[in-house]
């Protein structure tokens, strides 16, 4: 079976999307060089030309506003940011225009825009190249937030983002780009709000997002070695949340740990725990718990990075405390 790495899966999705529909365009700083945003946009220029594959001035604010105009005219822009941090210049476009365009047009116009932001981690990324703002974006009505953890999902969610009708923030963790998996060749979709049960178990549920998914699966393996059966639910999208799947796993195991690769306060993990508490708080066998990043900016130095990012052992330990 054919395997692709995570970045190759995104690259294939973009190639196929541009081939399927001439309204798809890819815009971002350096998208038209061979390096191609870590390989995700490589080769697009040669196939689809510089109108549809466009380098952009260092003007993230305008880049996103312009995408709103392009989408109104029937195009399906995919914007890229080598780091999600750079995209913050476009928060006006995202929060004041893009997210509410459908609402403000009284439901008449939708904006099929995909914004891919890459989140750095490790090797000294420091506080300005490592932030994942999926919690902020999930707070906003009118946009969806993709957090694919695997190559299969990266391709399917990119396709769904491009050919769906709503604006999407596509959060891609840089560290996952080496991961390989079987990826079907045909264009296919992975729907938003459909979580995936990655490992069944009866003792404790780990609900994980993005790069926390492989970590959660490793933690489940560690726990299995001690006779504890952990269930791993990959949310795949931070917005919308698959509420049914979250409640179902919590119902099965009665123990909930949420692993979210972001600051803890007011984040998606808190939302998941609130949801479960509202519906079945009294039925839980233990207090729910979160494994997040510390409420601190990211350090550069290697030793501090090691302290900053939680490990599969930390997650396994948290689960054990509940039993």
């Amino acid at each position, binding site marked *: 079976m054919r395997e692709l790495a995570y970045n190759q899966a995104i690259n294939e999705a973009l190639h196929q999307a541009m081939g399927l529909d001439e309204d798809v365009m890819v815009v971002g700083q350096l998208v038209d060089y061979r390096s191609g945003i870590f390989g995700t946009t490589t080769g697009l220029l040669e196939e689809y030309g510089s109108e549809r594959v466009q380098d952009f001035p260092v*003007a993230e604010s305008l880049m996103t506003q312009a995408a709103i105009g392009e989408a109104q005219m029937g195009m399906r822009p995919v914007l890229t940011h080598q780091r999600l941090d750079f995209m913050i210049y476009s928060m006006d476009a995202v929060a004041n225009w893009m997210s509410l365009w459908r609402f403000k047009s009284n439901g008449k116009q939708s904006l099929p825009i995909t914004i891919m932001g890459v989140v750095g981690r490790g090797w000294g990324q420091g506080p300005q190249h490592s932030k994942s703002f999926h919690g902020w974006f999930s707070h906003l009505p009118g946009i969806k937030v993709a957090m694919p953890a695997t190559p299969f999902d990266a391709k399917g969610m990119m396709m769904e983002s491009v050919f769906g009708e709503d604006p999407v923030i596509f959060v891609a963790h840089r560290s996952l780009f080496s991961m390989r998996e079987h990826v079907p060749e045909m264009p296919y979709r992975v729907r938003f709000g459909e979580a995936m049960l990655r490992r069944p178990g009866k003792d404790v549920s780990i609900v994980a997002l993005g790069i926390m998914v492989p970590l959660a699966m490793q933690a489940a393996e560690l726990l299995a070695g001690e006779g504890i059966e952990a269930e791993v639910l990959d949310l795949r999208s931070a917005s919308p949340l698959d509420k049914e799947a979250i409640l179902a796993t919590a119902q099965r195991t009665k123990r909930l740990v949420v692993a979210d690769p972001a600051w803890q306060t007011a984040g998606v993990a808190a939302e998941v725990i609130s949801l479960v508490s509202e519906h079945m708080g009294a039925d839980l066998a233990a207090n729910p718990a979160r494994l997040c990043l510390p409420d601190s900016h990211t350090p550069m130095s290697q030793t501090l990075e090691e302290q900053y990012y939680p490990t599969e052992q930390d997650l396994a330990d948290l689960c054990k405390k509940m039993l």
Partner: protein
Amino acid sequence: MPNGVCTMNSNFSQLIKDGRYIGMSLDGVDGDTVWQLYVFMQRLRLLENAIAALYSEQQMRCPVHFCDGQEAISAGLALAIRDSDHLFSHHRTHGFYLAKCREFKPLIDEIYGRISGASGGVAGSQDISYCEMNFHGGAILAGSIGIAAGVARAMQIKNIPALAFAGFGDGAVDEGVFWETVNYAALQKLPLVLVCENNGYSAFSPQNKRQAVMDISAKVRAFGMQAHSFFGNDAVESHRVISQAVGAVRRGEGPVFLEGHTFRWSGHVGPEGDDQYQYRSMQELAFWKDNCPIKLLEEKMLEEGLVKQQAIDDLVRQIGQELDQAFAEAKQSPFPEPVDWHAMNYATQTPKADELLAEEKSSGFDQNQDLAIPGPY
């Protein structure tokens, strides 16, 4: 001439004599066009007078920014813009709205929050959009200038023979995204028209307190974009400058920035006035009222024998009747029904994805792989 006017419009000082603008000329503009400019300005003025008069009834429950005194710029725009063009307006929407959409009713109903409003009552005066007419308002300064650039870019890529317009004030020019747009539009030679109503103030704050160089058009030119400024209370000059410039953009000569110097009579927002805060001089206001765009044109038309007073009186009466009826109807229009919040914010269907994409199942992922090490990039 009062101080404020001097600093703001030094380019036009030779056109002002004893406090009056003396630069108006009807040369090369036919009588019908002049009359259309006049009708547009009267419709806009009388519309806003009616809103102001009825505002205290508390049935128009949204912020309203009046453009009384500034009518000549949107009048010029109205004659140059086409249905297939797109126009993005800032918060002071009424002039731009009428230039693009012409009808009173969808605007008035919108301000009254009725379902029959242009945005179904969800937006109001400062956020009104009329999608069917390619008109989009928005109360966040400058963002929509960038959106207009995107519309222009799509027109360019798709070979659509139409233009994108953005209308805004001198305050929006303080924003970074305005300059990002000027740079990008010039770089890509976008079919884009930027229309700046420079009324000298951002709310209470005068331009010279916010910008080191007052000549916005000169700054824009430095970015490689064509720019023209004009005395914005002269409707004929506004028409001349805008239609010539728009013609050039339609011929593919690249984007243009148009700056009309004008002044708002009302307070920044609402009909109540804000001169108690003393942010502008009464002398300055008096100068601009003396140079009312409607009065300037009316005097010129009468002087040149283009119209009789009777025709003007008839026009004013007829617009008054039209407005009476529109306001009466708006008050009778139904309010929106309770809505489905989700469907208001998210598409309910994905036709394109349904058509193009297969359903597939993942065959399982091996988590025991090394993470990528980012490196310097």
